């Protein structure tokens, strides 16, 4: 498809489990962002990639969260030892131009930690 694709759309897991969320950005977009949106809140910045490298990971809440983008396209957000507080919608966005570009968002991956 032409848009940002995120899988899975829904993920239910148990506390303590490991989770991976995948983002497939728009082809050719070099900038990729991960955001987290909790109920009733706006998107909260997690990490930004320019190409393969994480240019800014200051939003990752702790070392249980990690993201990669090995070939500069698809990105995976990895959460270890999940906690109930990690429950949220994880949004991925891509952009073709850094600093002034429109962000194109996927529909998100809803994570529920029981």
């Amino acid at each position, binding site marked *: 498809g032409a*848009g*940002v694709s995120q899988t899975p759309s829904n993920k239910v897991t148990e506390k303590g489990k490991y989770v991976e969320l995948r983002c497939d950005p728009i082809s050719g977009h070099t*900038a990729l*962002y991960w*955001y987290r949106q909790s109920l*009733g*809140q*706006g*998107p*909260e*910045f997690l990490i*930004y990639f*320019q190409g393969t490298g994480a*240019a*800014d990971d*200051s*939003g990752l809440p702790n070392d249980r969260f990690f993201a990669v983008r090995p070939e500069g396209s698809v990105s995976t957000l990895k959460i270890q030892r999940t906690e109930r507080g990690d429950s949220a919608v994880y*949004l991925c*966005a891509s952009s073709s131009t*850094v*600093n*002034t570009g*429109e*962000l194109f*968002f*996927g*529909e*998100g991956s809803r994570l529920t930690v029981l």
Partner: protein
Amino acid sequence: AQSVTQPDIHITVSEGASLELRCNYSYGATPYLFWYVQSPGQGLQLLLKYFSGDTLVQGIKGFEAEFKRSQSSFNLRKPSVHWSDAAEYFCAVGPGSGTYKYIFGTGTRLKVLA
């Protein structure tokens, strides 16, 4: 530090009435400003953006916004609301000097009465 404030959590208007959603920002320089809309089950979609120049910007779906530097505001307006405009609206700022983050407000949920 950059920040965005949307003072209205919920707004209810009648179909056909005018609409104004408020957004105030904190930023060290001339900001890049955005309004996004999020409909249930869908990703965020860009309504309009301001980078420079004319302070009144036109967007999709009949929306417009006005940048007022003196008030640090970027309010979203629509002269006549349609039932399909019911959604959550997010104001965003960025990226800024030395950062690639886009910072989002907490959102305003719009309800439209028939």
